[in-house]
């Protein structure tokens, strides 16, 4: 493993091939095997994902980053059980994923908090289902815990129409956490939030992960966010999505704001930004082919 000095002087591409941190050998939980996805369109099938091979181990935090509309959400949707691959397999513990389930919590970009239920009602929704098998006193305890954790206790009996965007996002998180999923699938969950709320939500996420431990797949546009939160970053190409590169993030957990000051953070950011910008340009060329 390179020393600190070597890192500073090594060529940037070395980041791709040399893990800075020896990852513990946790079992592989998720596997993409030569996965391709076609979407039917008026002009025939459109390939949005083409030949993805990826493994995710227990406890990893994997960010998927790439240009808009490149197929990142489709990857998440396959793990979530909403989309089946046209080719290849998406496996959870070696079994193909067929349907959504409470083992894979999803944080949607549009939140999807239930408007007819109060904050309390939303969080306990999953716990009231047959699949949850939770007694009433347990339910109350769990709901109170997550409400307090997300800072929503004062709004327990309010409806979502009285909540701001950040609060609804927190509500969506609390609701997903309450059923204790092993996996968290997050689709640009903080995209619509202001910078302050976004940072607070990222720290809250890290805090919860530190106390509960889950395997996370996060789709994001923000390179900073990806580096700050993840143990591994998958840079995806312009449509159709392929894995351009996989980068291990050299920082351990638990993390805090100080990691932003680490010089490696800036190097990583520059490197990944360059890769992503190239893909953005490729995507733009696709959309508007050069004349002549």
């Amino acid at each position, binding site marked *: 493993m390179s020393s600190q000095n070597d890192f500073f002087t090594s060529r940037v591409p070395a980041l791709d091939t040399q893990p800075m941190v020896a990852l513990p050998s946790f079992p592989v939980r998720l596997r993409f095997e030569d996965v391709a996805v076609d979407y039917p369109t008026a002009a025939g099938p459109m390939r949005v994902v083409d030949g993805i091979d990826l493994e995710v181990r227990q406890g990893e935090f994997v960010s998927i980053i790439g240009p808009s509309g490149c197929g990142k959400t489709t990857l998440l949707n396959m793990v*979530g*059980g*909403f989309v089946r691959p046209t080719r290849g397999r998406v496996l959870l513990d070696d079994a193909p994923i067929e*349907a*959504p*389930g*409470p083992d*894979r*919590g*999803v944080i*949607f970009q*549009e939140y*999807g908090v*239930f*408007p*007819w*239920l109060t904050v309390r009602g939303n969080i306990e*929704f*999953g716990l*009231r*289902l*047959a*699949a*949850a098998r939770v007694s009433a006193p347990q339910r109350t305890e769990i709901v109170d815990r997550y409400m307090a954790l997300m800072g929503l206790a004062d709004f327990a009996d*309010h*409806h*979502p*129409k*009285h*909540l*701001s965007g950040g*609060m609804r996002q927190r509500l969506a998180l609390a*609701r*997903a956490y309450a*059923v204790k999923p092993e996996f968290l699938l997050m689709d640009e969950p903080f995209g619509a939030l202001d910078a302050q709320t976004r940072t607070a939500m990222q720290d809250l996420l890290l805090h919860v992960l530190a106390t509960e431990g889950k395997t996370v797949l996060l789709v994001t546009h923000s390179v900073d966010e990806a580096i700050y939160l993840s143990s591994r970053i998958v840079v995806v190409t312009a449509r159709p999505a392929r894995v351009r590169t996989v980068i291990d993030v050299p920082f351990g957990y638990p993390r805090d704001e100080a990691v932003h000051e680490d010089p490696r953070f800036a190097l990583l950011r520059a490197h990944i930004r360059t890769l992503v910008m190239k893909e953005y340009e490729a995507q733009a060329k696709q959309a508007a082919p050069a004349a002549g």
Partner: protein
Amino acid sequence: MVHGTFPPLKSQARGPAARAALVAAPWLALLVLWYAIRASGLINPSLVPAPHAVLSKFLELLQDRLLLDVWMSTRRVFVGVFLGVLAAVPVGFAIGWYQGVRGFLDPLINFFRALPPIALIPLVIVYFGIGETAKVAILFYASFFAGVIVMVEGIGQISPIYVKVSRTLGANDAEIFAKVIVPLAVPHILTAVRVALGVAWATLVASELIAAQQGLGALIQNASSFFQLDIVYVGIVCIGLIALAMDLLLRAATRRLVAWQDRIA
């Protein structure tokens, strides 16, 4: 931070006296217009009874048959709408939810929906006779088709995100129906009732063409054959006021039941 409360609209910021004036204003304007039309001579004044004449006729009829007429008509509308919406909710739901059902039933529904109830009266008399059943049948018909359209559109626009979310939380199909679809359908059921009520009141006169002795429609029909326009006006105003009262009640109930909705109004 509590969101969703814009500064009060101007009308809410005024005092109760001003608000009462605002509510009364359109009716007063209508009265003024009524007198003005009489005075202007645009229409022959003998064809337009004066508002005070209508009022005195109203009070006169109140001693006589009016209450019975109101009761009969209201009951018919009530039963027709109740049965019509009761049928419209599951049918509308099935069409809105299942693509196959939609393809199968949609053209049929639209075909029958276009048929005016008046045109169906001869058939209704043949199949149902000339009793209460026949009259309620017409009102059921009108309410059902009005309600189905509302339900189909309402169910159709339920955002799929809520179903997706509930699946990721572990809900099975029955739970999704009972705990997600039903609460989201309630506002549309209420709208279906409101629309059905409106259509039913509008169809009441047609339904009471079927040999009705009592009822506001019958009152209007009898009076019109004797050219008693003031009684016709009384009948029309009564229908309008009862329909309005029912609608206001329903709107109040809706506000209560659907308080969670983020609405403009």
